[in-house]
């Protein structure tokens, strides 16, 4: 079981949280201009890296707030947990970090 540190409540068991998939996927800036391919990419396509992954979690049985977690999908190590208004943290000494396709900033 994962031990995840909610930015507001501190470390809690995985069972207190709800998983929300990839983080930093901004809503399209001009939705009316999108092609079908661009809509498909926004709705159905997410990164699936083997290694560090920025993802969203919600503290369901605690403060009920969403936040982001940087987690290694191979070792399951939780590398960082941060608020939605904070940027994705740099991981010094980890050259293998998979950067998201879109620059962070949407933070939704």
């Amino acid at each position: 079981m994962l031990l995840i540190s909610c930015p507001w409540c501190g470390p809690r068991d995985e069972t207190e949280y709800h998983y929300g998939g990839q983080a930093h996927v901004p809503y399209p800036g001009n939705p009316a201009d999108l092609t079908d391919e661009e809509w498909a990419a926004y709705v159905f396509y997410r990164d699936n890296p083997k290694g560090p992954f920025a993802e969203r979690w919600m503290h369901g049985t605690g403060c009920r707030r969403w936040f982001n977690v940087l987690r290694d999908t191979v070792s399951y190590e939780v590398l960082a947990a941060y608020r939605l208004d904070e940027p994705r943290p740099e991981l010094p000494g980890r050259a293998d970090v998979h950067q998201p396709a879109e620059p962070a900033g949407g933070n939704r």
Partner: protein
Amino acid sequence: MTATPLPEHPDFLWRTPEPRSSYDVVIVGAGGHGLATAYYLARNHGITNVAVLEKGWLAGGNMARNTTIIRSNYLWDESAAIYEHALGLWERLPEELDYDFLFSQRGVLNLAHTLQDVREGVRRVGANRLNGVDAQWLEPDEVAKVCPILNVSPRTRYPVLGATFQPRAGIAKHDHVAWALARRADEMGVDLIQGCEVTGFLKDGDRVVGVETSRGRILAGRVGLAAAGHSSVLAERAGVRLPVQSHPLQALVSELHEPVHPTVVMSNHVHVYVSQAHKGELVMGAGVDAYNGYGQRGSFHVIERQMAAAVELFPVFARAHVLRTWGGIVDVTPDASPIIGTTPVENLYVNCGWGTGGFKATPAAGWTFAHTIATGEPHPLNAPFALERFTTGALIDEHGAAAVAH
């Protein structure tokens, strides 16, 4: 102290060739799907200059880790067609391959615990019958006749309100299925190459012309990916993005018991499914872990919850001991249906996204994927399962019939 080394395991069933420098077709991944594809490329299309490349050992991925349930009671026409084609092939494969892989048509019960489950189940039985799939709706007393050890008392937390029953469903011995397919493919000239990881692709413009592997470059006329949990990391190296997410899925077995469980029981609502293996172990599974992962292990609370559900449904299991738990990595699509077809890269084909339920499809996945690779065009059975459906919106939403949360 020096121990006498054990003798080498003989390769009874297939050769262990060195990879050649080029093949007509290279299949990546020697799981059930890769092996079935090679078998049908040779049998149905006469294409035998084929290599199946496997980074580990033959059928050591999800093929070795699944709970072996075979059924075809999916909701939509497209799914009923492909899974029922698979079931028809399962019924004749032991004879065709001359290998007893213990295909046992002991039936499957999909339990209903809420009014909505009941309605979904009754609807699915109707849909199945219209598609020629054997299906019945059973009331709780009839469920108890099929599976006497199941607790159908109205006094449990989630009482059994009925079940769908597919009598032709069942289980098979997964390792033997793989070995049976491997032996025949090998006999027809297919090279099965283990310990050979595909690390990249050779391209000529927008066309794939071969693969880079841990044992050197191999040229290929066509390349088919059948890499299950690793399909997206692999496809990305060819410049193709796939709408799949990889999740850990666990299973466990108990110690051996006398035969007590005559069928397969699955429950979507309380999240457990159970059958009894030929040797006597109770084989149990549940849903995927919510998060993405490649670690081939999962969360303990998933096991805890599935055991609680199993003991409530089967009080007779309360004293059974868990012998072993393990995890596999499954690739899940947004509509819980597979992707089999062409990709934007010429001569590169993909079979993936079977999620938690691809073992039952093994022969049909191989049949249709072989057709697609051989002809460059989808077979009518896999045409609806193309990558394009995520752009056109023609999804095949089988989350309800997938019977495992994902």
